[in-house]
C-alpha cells in the first residue's frame, strides 16, 4: 500500500514577527523553520499505518523552496517516512494553487490508500489545502481528527467539535485525514533514523512539470500590520476583597462588559 503525508514548514512558534520595510510580508531573516506542529501528528499517523500494514510505502510531500524545505523532508524521513517528493518553488502559492500542485504530484504516482495532513498550518491558519486536495483527487475526507481505526479498506475517524460533540465518519480508501493534537504522540527522530534519512530518495519536481502556473494563486497577503500597542495595564492594588470590588467596578463602568 502507499500513503502520502503532506508537510509544510512554518516559523517556529517562538518567532517574534517583524514586518519587511514595505509591510508586504514578514522579515524571514533569522526565522527558525520547523515542521508545522500538526503535521507531526500526520507523519506519526502515517508511520503507525505502515507499522500495522508492513507492505506500506510512506511518502512525505512538501511544496516550497528547496533550500529551506529540504530539512522538513529529512526530518519526516528520519521519523520513518520511506521517501519524499519535493515540489520546488520560490513562488508564493495560496491554498488553492498549492493543492493543485500537490494533487498533480500525487496523481502521477499511481494508487494509494491514505493521505494524511495537519488540520491547519499555524502560519496562516487557513486550513484549506488538505480539503481542496481531497476535492481535486475526488476522495472523501475527515478533518481535525483525534481518533482513527483502520480495517476493510476504510478508515473510521472521529473529531471533536463545538461543545464537546464527537462526530465519527467512515471513509472508503483512498481517503484524506487531517490530524489534530491528540491523534497520537509523534516520535522523535532517532540518531540512526537521521543517518538513514540521508540515503532515502527525494524526488524533485517543478511546478512546470506538474502543469501548474506559479501565477495561479487567487489570493495574496498584503499590507501587513502589527497589532496596535496596548495601553499599559491598569494594576489594581489593595487586599483581595478591595481588588475584586475595584475590578468589578472597572468592568462595569469603564469597560462596560458586565
Amino acid at each position: 500500500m502507499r500513503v502520502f503525508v503532506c508537510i509544510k514548514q512554518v516559523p517556529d512558534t517562538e518567532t517574534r514577527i517583524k514586518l519587511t520595510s514595505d509591510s508586504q510580508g514578514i522579515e524571514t531573516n533569522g526565522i527558525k523553520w520547523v515542521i508545522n506542529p500538526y503535521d507531526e501528528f500526520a507523519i506519526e499517523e502515517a508511520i503507525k499505518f505502515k507499522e500495522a500494514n508492513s507492505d506500506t510505502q510512506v511518502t512525505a510531500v512538501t511544496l516550497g523552496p528547496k533550500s529551506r524545505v529540504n530539512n522538513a523532508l529529512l526530518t519526516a524521513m528520519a521519523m520513518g517516512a520511506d521517501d519524499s517528493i519535493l515540489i520546488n518553488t520560490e513562488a508564493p502559492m495560496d491554498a488553492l494553487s498549492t493543492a493543485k500542485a500537490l494533487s498533480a504530484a500525487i496523481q502521477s504516482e499511481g494508487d494509494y490508500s491514505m493521505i494524511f495532513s495537519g488540520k491547519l498550518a499555524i502560519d496562516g491558519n487557513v486550513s484549506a489545502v488538505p480539503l481542496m486536495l481531497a476535492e481535486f483527487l475526488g476522495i472523501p475526507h475527515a478533518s481535525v481528527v483525534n481518533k482513527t481505526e483502520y480495517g476493510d479498506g476504510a478508515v473510521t475517524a472521529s473529531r471533536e467539535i463545538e461543545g464537546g460533540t464527537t462526530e465519527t465518519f467512515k471513509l472508503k480508501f483512498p481517503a484524506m485525514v487531517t490530524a489534530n493534537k491528540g491523534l497520537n504522540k509523534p516520535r522523535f527522530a532517532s540518531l540512526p533514523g537521521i543517518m538513514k534519512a540521508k540515503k532515502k530518495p527525494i524526488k524533485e519536481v517543478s511546478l512546470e512539470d506538474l502543469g501548474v502556473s506559479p501565477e495561479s494563486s487567487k489570493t495574496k497577503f498584503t499590507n501587513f500590520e502589527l497589532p496596535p500597542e496596548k495601553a499599559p495595564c491598569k494594576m489594581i492594588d489593595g487586599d483581595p476583597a478591595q481588588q475584586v470590588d475595584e475590578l468589578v467596578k472597572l468592568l462595569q463602568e469603564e469597560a462596560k462588559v458586565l
Partner: protein
Amino acid sequence: MKILVFLETNDSEIKKSSLEGLSVAAQGDHQIATCAIGSGSDAVVSKLGQWGVEKHFSCTQDQAQTYNPEVYKNFIDQAIDQWKPDLILASSNNVGRDVFPRAAAKHDMAYMSDVTEINLDGGVSITRPMYAGKCTAQVTFTDDSAKIVLLRPNQVAVNEVNKGATTENVALSLEESSGNSETVSVSKGETEKLDLTEAEVIVSGGRGLKEADNFKLLHDLAEPLGATVGASRAVVDLGWVPHSLQVGQTGKTVAPNLYFAVGISGAIQHLAGMSGSKNIVAINKDEKAPIFQKATYGIVGDLFDVVPLLTEKLKSIQ
C-alpha cells in the same frame, strides 16, 4: 454583487454567527440569497425578508439532518449552481472550514478563512490575523473569480435592517451519495456552552491552578459570567483539560469581549491566541508575568484568594 450566505440554524433560530454574515451582505445594494440545511422551516424563511433575502435554498431531507461533509457540500454545490454568486459568506467554524475549501476547489473560487474585517464598497476588501494574531494582513484578490469568505464569529456587528423583501423558498434535493463517506455517529457533548471561538466571555486557567480539580474554581467563576472555560497548553499537556479548551498558537485563536487569564504566565504562544480580546483581566501572583503586558486590568495576588471572592461578588450583582 450576488451574494450567497450560508446559514446555520437551531430549529427556527438563526445562529448569531450567521446573522453576522447576513448583516455584512445587507449593507449596500446586493442581491442576496441564503442557504441552510434543516430549515425549510417557514419560521426561518419568514425572518429573511428583513435582511433583503430574495431566495432561500433549503433541504429538509432526512439524510441531510446528520452532519456529513459530503452531504453538505453536495447541497452547497447545488445552491452555487443555481444562484451563481460572486461572493459566498459563511462562518469560520467547524462546519464552514469542513465544507467550503472543497467548494472553492470544485468551483475554482478564491477562498479565505478567519476573516475579521470585511468591506463590500466597490469590491471585496478583507483583513485577517496571521501567525495566530501576531500580525494582520489584507487579502488581495488577484483575479475576478467568485470568492468564498469565512467570517470569524464575534468580529462584525449584527446590524438589524428592514428591507422588507419577499423570500422565495427553494427546496433542493440531494444527489445520491457516493457511498465513500458515511457518518457513523454524532454524540452530543455534555456542555451546552458556546465554543471558545464564539464565546463573548472566556475564563482561562493555567498551571497556577496547581491541580486538575481546582479547575472547578474557574467553572464557578464562569457561571455568573456566562463564560466558556479555556486553558493554557501547559495544563492541556498535563491532562487536566482536553485540547479543545486550549487557547494559543497551537490551540484556538479567540477574541472575546472579556478574557480572564488566571494563573497563566503569558507565553508568546498563548498571547498569540488571545491578545485580540477586547478586555483582558490577568490574575497572577507574579507581578513580572508577561501576561500583564497584554492585560487591560491586572491583579497581582493569589488566585485561590481572588477567584472565589470574585465569583461571590459577580453572583451578588446578578
